[in-house]
């Protein structure tokens, strides 16, 4: 190192003495304030979301008159909110694992008892009648007189099955096709690679729902109108650009050297794709599977438009139907159907939540 003047020494001596204790106090305060503000903020912004869903559930399990009431919601909240706070506190204050468990168990016990006393008597399963009584509408309306020979009340399980079939098949196809395409796009050099990626973005700019009539004609011409396959393939086509975009990001992040290894180990690129690369993008596959499934699960316009002869009930249309309000709505049943409708997506969502969070685009950072 070259001999240099030392610019430090001059000022170092005049360094003011530091009040470490004051700094520590300030830091402690700042840390606490920060945590409080963060949690308060997040709770505040999350309540507007939690509350309506919670409401839906309480109506589904408690409404008797068919009117949306909030009494049970507030009663439940009166139990749940203090319980959650107590959980939080006991977790924060517990000194040991044992104390933690005791705290949690106590809070849970009190909460369950309080819930049982305050809310329990209001709970019933009557609103889920549609699950075992396909003709429930006529049962519900038997107050106007018996309706016989009604051929047309849809069965919820039929709708459920259709929805599962559409969403499931579509998910399988999207995941497969998108993985193939995204892998190629991410890892192969070919003419038109850049324009291909660009067209994915451009396709995203197309107003899908305004293409229903051309789609209708198109499906008719190729003979897929009025088939589930038609609906599924259309859904697939519209979901593909997004899925490819996301999957490409995951493929971009797979280290090159393991693929190189596979090649020198004797695999062809296809074999390397299947046996080495694909297992690395499991999270991506799960993420797009969830998103695609939900998309198919909630679909109603295509189902309604393209299925004209089959009994084409899906959960979305069923939901619509129970909500039809020309003749009055039973909100209890609507909520129950809503809860039932939400359950599969929720299960899927809970299972995959972790993986959804790992989505990034293009593997490019900064």
């Amino acid at each position: 190192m070259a001999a240099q003047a030392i610019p430090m020494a001059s000022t170092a001596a005049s360094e003011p003495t530091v009040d470490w204790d004051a700094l520590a106090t300030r830091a402690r305060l700042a840390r606490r304030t920060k945590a409080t503000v963060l949690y308060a903020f997040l709770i505040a912004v999350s309540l507007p979301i939690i509350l309506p869903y919670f409401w839906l559930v309480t109506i589904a399990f408690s409404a008797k008159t068919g009117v949306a009431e909030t009494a049970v919601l507030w009663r439940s909240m009166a139990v749940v909110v203090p319980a959650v706070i107590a959980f939080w506190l006991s977790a924060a204050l517990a000194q040991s694992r044992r104390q933690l468990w005791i705290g949690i168990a106590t809070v849970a016990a009190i909460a369950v008892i309080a819930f049982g006393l305050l809310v329990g008597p209001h709970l019933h399963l009557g609103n889920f009648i549609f699950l075992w009584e396909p003709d429930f509408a006529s049962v519900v309306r038997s107050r106007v007189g018996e309706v016989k020979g009604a051929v047309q009340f849809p069965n919820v399980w039929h709708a459920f099955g259709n929805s599962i079939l559409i969403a499931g098949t579509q998910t399988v196809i999207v995941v497969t096709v998108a993985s193939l395409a995204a892998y190629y796009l991410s890892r192969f050099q070919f003419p038109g690679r850049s324009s291909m990626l660009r067209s994915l973005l451009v396709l995203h700019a197309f107003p899908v729902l305004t293409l229903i009539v051309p789609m209708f004609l198109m499906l008719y011409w190729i003979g897929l109108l009025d088939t589930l396959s038609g609906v599924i393939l259309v859904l697939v086509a519209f979901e593909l650009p997004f899925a490819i975009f996301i999957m490409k990001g995951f493929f971009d992040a797979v280290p090159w050297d393991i693929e190189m290894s596979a090649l020198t180990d004797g695999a062809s690129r296809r074999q390397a794709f299947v046996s080495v690369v694909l297992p690395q993008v499991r999270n991506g596959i799960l993420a797009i599977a969830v998103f695609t499934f939900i998309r198919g699960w909630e679909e109603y316009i295509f189902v309604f438009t393209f299925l004209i002869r089959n009994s084409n009930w899906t959960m979305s249309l069923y939901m619509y139907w129970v909500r039809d309000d020309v003749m009055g709505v039973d909100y209890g049943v609507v909520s129950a159907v809503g809860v039932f409708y939400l359950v599969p997506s929720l299960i899927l969502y809970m299972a995959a939540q972790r993986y959804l969070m790992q989505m990034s685009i293009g593997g490019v950072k900064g």
Partner: protein
Amino acid sequence: MTTIVDELRVERRGHAKSVARRRTNFVLFLGPAIVLTVIFFIVPVVIDIAVSFTDLSRSLRITEFTTEQYEKVFRTDRRLSQVIGLTFIYVFGTLAIFNVTFGLILAITTTAIRNTSGSFFRAVWLLPRMSPSVLYILLWLWAVSPTEAGLVNQVLMRGFGLDAPLDLLTSAPIALIIISNGFIGASMGMIIFTAAIRGIPEHLFHAASVDGAGTFAIIRFITLPALRWPISFVTIYQTLSLLVSFEYILLLTKGGPFYDTTVYALYVYRRAFESGQYAYGAALALFLIVIGVVVALIGWRFFDMERLLQRPRIEVH
């Protein structure tokens, strides 16, 4: 032990084989995606363009080829300018308030607290996206019901002493569609920004705090610069999403009251599907497609999306 190059044959036929393999791989990997997209996506767009030059009506009959639809779009449709203005407010409002800003705030705050708590709050915010749209909007309708039974009104009246119930659907419809879309839109940004924040080397945060930066300085100097690209991406991608989708608005307000929440894409839908003027709808849609494509291409340029393409490091097919 096998010889290093199995056969001389391999050597001679190597080139021909590699070209063939290149082709098969292209077909195998991209083929399905291209076929599906072309048949079920591109072809309909082309049909749509063709339809816009006809008088296709609700019974799918064409009696003449005409440019009359375009005359309508540009001459007689006076509502269009208002609709475009509204679309602008809606797209940028949602984008600026929720999809980017709030998504960013959520990502930053949920990554700043303990991971388990953070994922809980993120999970809550993903819930709307995971709910079927019909159901999600049903909850909204119940929540903003203008009577005292509405959840919002209950909270405001009981909790905050509001006198008369608010009627958000009539008095603030635009805000409502922005918020209801934003609750869903924010989660996309939240996910992508969270992943990006997690991708920032932890040492950078450590270095900055040792260097004297406080919370906000760290966000300003470390987090935000690292998120520049994801923010660009979310901006352009969600601009396009918002531009062309209207499902939630349709379910929530049907475009009303009056035309107050009829954004362009919904306008196309109302024109074409509520009254079966398919040809006119096609002409209107085409206009939207052009706008969308232009925005997409500008975005591509502006945000340097080309960076998404790393050069493949394996050259063989």
